[in-house]
């Protein structure tokens, strides 16, 4: 467990990471090597600052150290190429840079970096990994442990991602005009994935994953500061806050999932709920509505119900109708069906999901089976519900979900 001071230092370094990278990158234009150099500078700081104190200009210190590492690397590569005596290696280097090294960070460096890391040439997994390292300032070891893969695997993935960006000829700086909306969408989607990866963890030895939700929230906050007028950025942040607020109630201590209707709402984080509700309430009337805002609005309606039975289901149905008009994904239809069942009864819900049974995106998907099981249970068809829960338990690849679904099945009479 880190001491409080260590955690403060880590937070400071993570805050500075993208700005330092942006500052050096603007001059070097070499993303791959610059990113490595900045990581080394961050490591040097985490070793030196606790002993020597934080420099008066930490940003300038990191920029100077990173620039020097980069120069060293270029020199040694040039020397290797020339097969000449490496004069550069013998050149004495100062232990710490001048404290007045003042390169002013540009405010939008973080956003430019996010746009670069979420470049369409990269797979989603690579976008996530690169964002966590280059923008969030996490070490490769931390990212690897968050995604439960060996560090060597993550190192390769990050290296490959950086090479892909280089090969795609992507530059640091604002993307071409027409691309901007799409690219920002990709950034928001990546942050949403990072958040979900952390949120869906249900306990046990997963402490590192919890960090993913706070990193996603922190980065989304930063974007919102840069783009305060963007309704979808605000919507995503509100959605994250409202979802995160439920974390203390969503699983038991031994990691079993607790469904929304059965959660102890006193354990929801009141401060996060308040912030999320205020944010989405302020955003909806003044901006063009989008999927993140609608999902946040739905989460807010749930949050406003003191008890599950007080939930304003007609309003949730109306919001899902709007959401479905924008993105009629099978997952949205499933959630919509559950809400409809709460208003018009389980038969109406079952009718809504019937077309999904032949949708190839959903065929054999545990979530469809689980919703069918739930609606059948509501309809009093316990034997059929039990069979569906058992089937869904076999279909899921998530251990907590399998446990939950098997428990639901076992609670129903066999006939």
């Amino acid at each position, binding site marked *: 467990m880190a001491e409080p001071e260590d955690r403060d230092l880590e937070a400071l370094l993570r805050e500075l990471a993208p700005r330092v990278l942006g500052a050096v990158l603007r001059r070097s234009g070499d993303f791959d090597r610059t990113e490595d150099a900045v990581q080394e500078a961050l490591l040097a700081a985490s070793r030196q600052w606790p002993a020597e104190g934080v420099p008066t200009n930490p940003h300038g210190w990191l920029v100077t150290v990173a620039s020097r590492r980069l120069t060293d690397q270029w020199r040694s590569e040039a020397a290797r190429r020339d097969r000449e005596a490496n004069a550069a290696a013998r050149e004495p280097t100062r232990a710490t840079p001048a404290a007045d090294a003042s390169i002013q960070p540009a405010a939008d460096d973080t956003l430019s970096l996010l746009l670069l890391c979420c470049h369409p040439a990269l797979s989603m997994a690579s976008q996530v990994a690169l964002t966590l390292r280059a923008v969030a300032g996490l070490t490769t070891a931390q990212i690897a442990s968050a995604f439960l*893969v060996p560090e060597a*695997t*993550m190192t*390769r993935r990050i290296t490959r991602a950086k090479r892909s960006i280089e090969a795609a000829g992507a530059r640091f700086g604002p993307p071409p005009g027409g691309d901007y909306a799409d690219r920002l969408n990709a950034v928001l989607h990546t942050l949403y994935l990072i958040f979900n990866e952390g949120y869906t963890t249900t306990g046990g030895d997963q402490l590192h994953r919890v960090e993913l939700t706070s990193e996603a929230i922190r980065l989304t906050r930063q974007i919102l500061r840069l783009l305060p007028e963007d309704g979808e950025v605000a919507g995503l942040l509100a959605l994250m806050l409202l979802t995160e607020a439920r974390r203390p109630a*969503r*699983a038991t201590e031994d990691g079993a*999932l607790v469904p929304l209707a059965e959660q102890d709402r006193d354990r929801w984080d009141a401060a996060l709920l308040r912030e999320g509700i205020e944010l989405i309430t302020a955003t909806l009337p003044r901006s063009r509505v989008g999927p993140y805002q609608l999902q946040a609005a739905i989460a807010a309606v749930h949050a406003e119900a003191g008890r599950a039975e007080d939930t304003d289901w007609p309003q949730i149905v109306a919001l899902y109708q709007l959401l479905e008009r924008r993105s009629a994904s099978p997952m949205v239809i499933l959630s919509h069906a559950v809400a409809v069942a709460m208003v018009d009864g389980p038969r109406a819900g079952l009718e809504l999901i019937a077309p999904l049974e032949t949708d190839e995106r959903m065929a054999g998907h545990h979530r469809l089976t689980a*919703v069918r099981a739930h609606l059948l249970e509501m309809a009093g068809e316990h034997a059929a519900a039990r069979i569906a829960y058992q089937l869904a338990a076999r279909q899921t690849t*998530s251990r907590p979900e399998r446990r*939950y679904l098997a428990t639901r099945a076992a609670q129903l009479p066999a006939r």
Partner: protein
Amino acid sequence: MMLIYSSPATWDALSQEERDQLERDHAELYRELVQSGEWVGGHALADPSRSIGVRVRGGVPITSDGPYAEIKEHLAGYDVVDCDSLERALEIAARIPDAALCGVEVRPIMEVTGMEM
């Protein structure tokens, strides 16, 4: 996870040259997967004659020598990859040389994450 099956009969029928080629193909695939960052882990397993079964009955562990001789196919090794899609996983499985000899089974690994419902 790629569960790689082998059968002694097919293996014994191969020439030395064919066996060497098989090793080279697998090593080449392994290098590619490490390079792409998709490789997570994997091992070849010793011959099933080295297997020892463990069963606990009434709290007492009982060991027994592994499977009987008439078993035609056995688990010979496994590879764990982390890739973007099922399609990609199947593509990798098809390149494991044993897929052409005996068979490879692709099965998802259970995740520790889950959504509340």
